[in-house]
């Protein structure tokens, strides 16, 4: 017993969070700089050129490609990394560390891209456009999580609501039209959310168990219906919804590089921008939002002041389900135009990580969504380059990033205080 406590002390001293956060990132940054200089820089010819293609379509104004010497680019990046690392060890970036780590991540990835595309060309704009597209379900899913958790209900069932939304969207979209598909996805999300709400608010079931149950149920049900009906060739018309085509925004889509990346997509991408804006204003600038958040932080106080805790929580759950269902319909109606089994592939959970990473803030969720989207687009693009790292290892990237993010390496984020606990009105 004694030795174990001693051991404990030693560990806590070395791993003391405050000290650890000061020097560990700094050392890491410098190591990264050295790695880029010694390993990557040595592996390319002195006169090799890297080309980043900037135009991906004819919608935007055409500009020349970005061509530079590979070694020069890598030297620049490794110098920047080492400089940031030294500053971190000596002075520390304090609360800006999150941003700096993000910058470091971008630098490292950029370094690998510069190196990987050495001697060939890489469609830089295309990659960022894919990033925006891939971020859609993650960001919108995270918004669903924010809506729920800000009112004190943990919604781990986003994955289940999304897969149900994808299924309903594909089938209803095939029978009627794409808009009906979206509507059906929203409705099915709301229905599942209602179950979650009744279980966790009325029956006070542990919210994580309730959410897990919904995940198992809707993954099971969609797979069941898929095998039972959609696999037959004669039923193929039920799973041919098609998808929303890109609608470039006039004017904005013409801007070189920026246009194709942000403003030349289909409805879902614009819906993401709009939802982030609406939710930011609604949560932080309106009376409704204040009440909503107060229920998540301190329901008893909110109740005392006359806010109906139960109604607020039910509404939050329903809205969250609708948003999650809509996010799910992206998979079928927004990208491939049909439903496939387990097509959400854990994006609902990554959305939760994005929510935490974004500190339960819609704008933060958008940034986190973009980060995960970038990780995904990286894996698709890098397999095309002559890259020595196998694709499977790269595919782990989003999940490892999620773990690192959750571990609070980038600064601890605190959720709404009352999230996870059922509210019980005191009886006299």
């Amino acid at each position, binding site marked *: 017993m004694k030795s174990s406590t001693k051991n404990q002390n030693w560990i806590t001293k070395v791993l003391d969070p405050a000290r650890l956060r000061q020097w560990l990132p700094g050392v890491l940054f410098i190591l990264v700089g050295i790695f880029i200089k010694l390993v990557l820089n040595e592996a390319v010819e002195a006169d090799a050129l890297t080309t980043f293609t900037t135009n991906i379509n004819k919608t935007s104004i055409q500009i020349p490609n970005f061509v530079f010497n590979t070694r020069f680019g890598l030297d620049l990046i490794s110098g920047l990394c080492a400089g940031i690392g030294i500053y971190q060890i000596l002075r520390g970036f304090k609360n800006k560390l999150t941003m700096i780590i993000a910058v470091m991540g971008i630098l490292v990835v950029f370094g690998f891209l510069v190196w990987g595309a050495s001697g060939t060309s890489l469609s830089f704009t295309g990659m960022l456009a894919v990033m925006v597209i891939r971020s859609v379900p993650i960001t919108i899913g995270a918004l669903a999580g924010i809506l729920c958790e800000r009112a004190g209900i943990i919604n781990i069932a986003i994955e289940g609501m999304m897969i149900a939304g994808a299924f309903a969207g594909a089938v209803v979209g095939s029978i009627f039209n794409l808009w009906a598909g979206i509507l059906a996805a929203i409705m099915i999300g709301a229905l599942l959310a209602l179950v979650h709400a009744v279980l966790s608010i009325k029956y006070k079931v*542990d*919210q994580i168990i309730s959410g897990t*149950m919904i995940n*198992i*149920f809707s993954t099971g049900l969609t797979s069941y219906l898929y095998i*039972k009906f959609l696999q037959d060739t004669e039923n193929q018309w039920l799973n041919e919804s098609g998808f929303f085509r890109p609608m470039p925004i006039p004017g904005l889509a013409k801007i070189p590089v920026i246009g194709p990346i942000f403003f030349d997509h289909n409805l879902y991408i614009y819906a993401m921008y709009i939802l982030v804006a609406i939710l930011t204003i609604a949560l932080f600038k309106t009376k409704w939002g204040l009440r909503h958040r107060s229920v998540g932080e301190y329901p008893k106080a909110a109740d005392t002041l006359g806010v109906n805790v139960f109604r607020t929580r039910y509404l939050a759950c329903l809205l969250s389900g609708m948003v999650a269902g809509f996010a799910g319909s992206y998979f079928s109606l927004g990208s491939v135009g049909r439903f496939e089994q387990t097509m959400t592939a854990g994006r609902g959970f990554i959305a939760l990580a994005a929510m935490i990473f974004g500190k339960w803030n819609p704008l933060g969720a958008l940034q986190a969504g973009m980060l995960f989207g970038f990780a995904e687009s990286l894996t698709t693009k890098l397999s095309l380059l002559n890259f020595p790292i196998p694709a499977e290892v790269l595919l782990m990237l989003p*999940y490892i990033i999620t*773990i690192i993010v*959750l*571990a609070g390496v980038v600064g601890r984020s605190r959720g709404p205080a009352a999230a996870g606990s059922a509210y019980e009105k005191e009886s006299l």
Partner: protein
Amino acid sequence: MTNKKTSDGKRNFLSIFYEELSRSSLTIIVLSVISGFVMGGILVILTAPEVYKAFGTSFVSGLSTSWNIVAKTYSSLFLGAIGNPARIAEALGSGDRALILKAFTPFLESLVVTTPYLFTGVAVAMGFRAGLFNIGAEGQVLVGAIAAGWAGWSFTGLSPWIHVPLAMLIGALAGGLWGFVPGFLKVKTGAHEVITTIMMNYVAYYLIYYLIAAPLRDPNEVTPKTPWVLESAHLFRFFPDPIRFHFGFFIALMVAILAWYILFKTTWGYELRTVGLNPNASRYAGMNITVVTIAAMALSGAIAGMAGASEILGVTWRQSQALATGYGFDSIALALLAQNHPLGVILTALLFGFLRSGSRVMQLSAGTPVYIINILQAFIILFIAAPAIIRTIFRLKQPAAKEAPLPISLSEKKS
């Protein structure tokens, strides 16, 4: 209704029995399973086109078609899981060993499927007892399998008495490592284990996909597969070839009993359960929550890793890239149904093993997709987690003490 009016002395045996039964949690468990099956049956009826056709002609034929479809689904599930009783009786009557074995094949095959469920069920239950929701059993099974397999084909010239335990141990260690990481992160950084374990599942999935694709690939194979596990590392099989029933089943039983002993008969198990029930109280009592949490998660992972080890050493003998086993996810419902009791897990693992084993036959002969099992599980979790629903449906009495929906609460505990 009359029980209430009669005074204590005059209640007859039946009413007392009814009251006790009504309040017991075992009743809830049994009724949850039954209700789950009923809901599954309703789903089968609702999704059968022939039922709607039959209701079109007449109401009675609609009802009979519904009944037939449900009966066919569940009877083929039963036949697939246990075997044909008539054939078993006939084989026993004939006394021919080969015939008897053939008749019992479905039953023994169900025990083969039960084996990993026993491990993962105990693993998840162990986590729940410590207040940890280990959704990562799936990934722990995978890394356990690949590690045990690696030990199984790369160590040559060992006696089976050393090789088998060694390979099992290495599998358990790998699973334990996969459980240790989320446990460590939870204690040290507050990262919720639900999400980290899910992420670890994906990491495990891609890691093993990669390992089988390149470093551990059998060079003589066209498709990516690992080499065969050496004969000296095979878990003992009791019967000749088509029957795969192996010694792992008994190891799993022993693990379940050992887990029960640790949880309920040792000081450490007591600490683990206390931390799960109330971390604040256990902190005041001087228990080391950090160590208990990390150890519980690592142990849970190690047990799940043994599931993978016993699969590769006892059943498949090699690993291909078809990875998702589903055992890890199913064991959530399994552990909840067992009320997180290791000995209860033995019963529920048998139930789930037989269901899963029978569902393959069901999909082939009755055309009901195997995923009906997942839907059953979801309903079972629902009814177990919210016993009030079952009490309302079956008009059961309220338990004497105000019951918590579950013995534990998983959501973040604030101090």
